[in-house]
């Protein structure tokens, strides 16, 4: 049975769904990541703000301190100009400003005219080539680089000393201990691991808790990778490398009084320490998404894919003909799929019942057909037995074996004999039709000598031709093989039937039997007559059972109307075809075409 419906391979539902769930999860993860990122940015910004505030407050303190010290030193220069005692002025200035280590008055020739210091004795003469001399000559304040003085970060501030007439005559050199001032900066390390240091505008390290790094003349631009100006940008958190390594958030604040910067940095990890709770939330979010993804997949699998597959397999089994199969789905009995399975089972139940009914009905019908054909066969046999006896006796009488019979009696016996033979022919035809209908007509091919067989047909019909004074001709194709494989009895039945019809319906002229080779593997038996012919409308049903032209034909010519139907059926069973052409009043041509199965001479056993 050809498959009218092609069952396509199912696309994996799991894959389709998990792809969709996967996309959704990806979106969720992206959203979470975006939140995490913005949160991180917020944290970094907060850290940035925190450290920049710290830096700025240091700057403010320092600026204030330096401004105060500078102011006080400026006041001291005035005291020096006005007071008679330079020593006194210097001493009181030292007392007022604890960070001051020493105060010196140096004239423009470079000679120290006065020197007060907190500890020890001062030098009396210093080299003339002072770095500040140009600034002082321009009457500008000068601040030295930070240097180490007895392990103390120290800076010099030099101010011009100007007399009342406005004349410059000396410089006040103040040595300031930065330890006290920047104690806050270098000691911030204990607070949240924040580290502070001071650099100049070129990035040279001025103050740091580790003096060895300061003394190595470190430039933070090399280490940190950013210039102080860049570090002081408040727009974004400066994520960079720390002075002593590690990823840090850094910020630089510029002093007002000096071109220096305070840099405060804090390790990023510390910045994120306060991040714990929200990061936990994010972790939970990621976990929940992952679990949902897996659970969703499993749910789709157990609640949809597996039941659907079981459903499909069950339906497939039923489709393949196992009608007693039922769909079993465990666990989803109550949902839509379970209900669908129950519905399909009910349908299968119905199909099974109906099919069984049909099978039963079909078997009964076949049995009935078999019984009918058996009945006909038995009846035919039963009918033929007495008929055979009658024909036997009538034959004996006709042959004079039962004594001499003449005149009227002989005529009547011949009528009994003729009618008996006709009745036998009818019964034989009916039996053949019954056999054909029941599929019990068998074709038995045997080696046959074709010319001999054809000759036997001619012999059988010569008497009839002679009786009706008809010309009977045989045209046998000499190219035909002598010996063929064929059911000679059925072939004889076909030929005799066609010939007897031809003689029956022909009153004058001729009957021609042609046997010809046809193509490579076929042969043709043709029976032509010059009889009454067949009207065109009748050509369509001439081979149908129980069809003669009309009732009168039957009365005039006799016959069951089964002959041509049997001929057609036998021809078909032998793998051939039959056709007819006819002109009313001119004659008919019946053509039977059959497969030709030639045999070599040696294969033949004498059979006719």
């Amino acid at each position, binding site marked *: 049975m050809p498959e009218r419906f092609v069952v396509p391979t199912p696309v994996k539902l799991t894959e389709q769904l998990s792809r969709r769930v996967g996309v959704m999860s990806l979106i969720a993860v992206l959203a979470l990541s975006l939140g995490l990122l913005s949160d991180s940015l917020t944290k970094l910004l907060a850290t940035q703000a925190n450290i920049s505030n710290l830096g700025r407050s240091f700057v403010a303190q320092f600026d204030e301190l330096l401004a105060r010290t500078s102011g006080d030193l400026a006041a001291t220069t005035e005291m020096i100009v006005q007071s008679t005692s330079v020593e006194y002025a210097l001493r009181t200035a030292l007392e007022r400003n604890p960070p001051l280590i020493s105060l010196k008055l140096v004239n423009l020739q470079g000679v120290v005219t006065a020197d007060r210091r907190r500890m020890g004795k001062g030098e009396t003469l210093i080299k003339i080539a002072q770095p500040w001399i140009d600034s002082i000559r321009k009457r500008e304040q000068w601040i030295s680089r930070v240097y180490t003085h007895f392990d103390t970060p120290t800076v010099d501030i030099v101010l011009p000393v100007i007399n009342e007439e406005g004349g410059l005559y000396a410089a006040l050199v103040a040595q300031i201990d930065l330890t006290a001032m920047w104690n806050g900066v270098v000691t911030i390390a204990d607070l949240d691991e924040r580290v502070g240091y001071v650099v100049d505008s070129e990035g040279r390290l001025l103050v740091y808790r580790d003096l060895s790094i300061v003394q190595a003349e470190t430039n933070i631009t090399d280490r940190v990778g950013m210039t102080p100006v860049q570090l002081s940008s408040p727009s974004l958190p400066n994520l960079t490398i720390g002075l002593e390594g590690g990823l840090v958030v850094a910020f630089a604040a510029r002093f007002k009084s000096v071109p220096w910067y305070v840099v405060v940095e804090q390790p990023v990890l510390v910045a994120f320490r306060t991040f714990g709770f929200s990061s936990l939330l994010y972790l939970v979010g990621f976990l929940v998404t992952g679990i949902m993804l897996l659970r969703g997949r499993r749910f789709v699998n157990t609640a949809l894919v597996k039941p659907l597959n079981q459903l499909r397999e069950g339906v497939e089994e039923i489709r393949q003909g196992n009608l007693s199969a039922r769909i079993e789905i465990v666990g989803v009995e109550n949902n839509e799929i379970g209900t669908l399975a129950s519905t399909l089972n009910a349908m299968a139940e119905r199909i099974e019942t109906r099919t069984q009914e049909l099978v039963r009905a079909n078997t009964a019908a076949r049995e009935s057909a078999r019984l009918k054909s058996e009945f006909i066969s038995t009846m035919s046999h039963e009918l*033929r*037995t007495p008929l*055979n006896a009658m*024909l*036997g006796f009538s*034959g004996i009488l006709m*042959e004079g074996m039962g004594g001499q019979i003449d005149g009227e009696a002989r005529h009547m016996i011949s009528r009994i004999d003729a009618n008996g033979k006709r009745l036998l022919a009818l019964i034989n035809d009916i039996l053949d039709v019954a056999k054909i209908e029941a599929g019990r007509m*068998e074709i038995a091919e*045997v080696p046959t000598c074709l010319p001999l067989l054809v000759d036997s047909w001619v012999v059988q019909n010569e008497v009839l031709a002679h009786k009706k004074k008809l010309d009977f001709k045989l045209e046998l194709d000499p190219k035909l093989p002598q010996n063929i494989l064929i059911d000679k009895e059925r072939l004889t039945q076909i030929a005799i039937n066609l010939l007897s019809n031809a003689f029956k319906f022909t009153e004058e002229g001729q009957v021609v039997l042609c046997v010809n080779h046809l193509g490579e593997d076929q042969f043709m038996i043709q029976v032509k007559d010059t009889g009454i012919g067949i009207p065109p409308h009748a050509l369509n049903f001439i081979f149908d059972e129980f069809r003669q032209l009309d009732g009168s034909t039957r009365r005039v010519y006799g016959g069951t109307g089964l002959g041509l139907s049997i001929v057609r059926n036998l021809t078909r069973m032998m793998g051939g075809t039959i056709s007819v052409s006819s002109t009313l009043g001119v004659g008919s041509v019946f053509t039977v075409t059959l497969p030709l199965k030639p045999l070599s001479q040696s294969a033949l056993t004498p059979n006719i």
Partner: protein
Amino acid sequence: MPVARNILNGWRVVVIDDEADSLEVATRILVYYGAHVETAQEGLTGVKLVQQSRPHFIVCDLSMPGMDGWQVLRLLKDDQSTMTIPVIALTAHAMPGDRDRAVGAGFHNYLSKPLKPATFIMDLLKLLIDVPDFEPLKHEIEKSYEV
């Protein structure tokens, strides 16, 4: 085709057929041609009859109630004293291949019913012509053809 009425003179024939009428037709024809005919209407009776009278040939119907023609043949072929006697089968409805089947089983040949009195004796003699015992018949038959 006229056949000499004494052609079967001195021949003993056994005919076995359950149908009395059919039996009578065969008997009448054979007797007409001079044969000495003995009949049986049952297979077993027929076999016993053959064993007693040792006929020249046997005509036996195939389909009979009780013991059928095939079983009769088997019994006759199993018996040394009867195994060489030719048996001609009679059958009411010939099917294609029946002849081969009958000959294969051991029948000498077969004739289909209805028996045609006009040709029966010729048909029968033609079938028997190759039996050595029937050699004299051959001459007679050829003579008949010539007439």
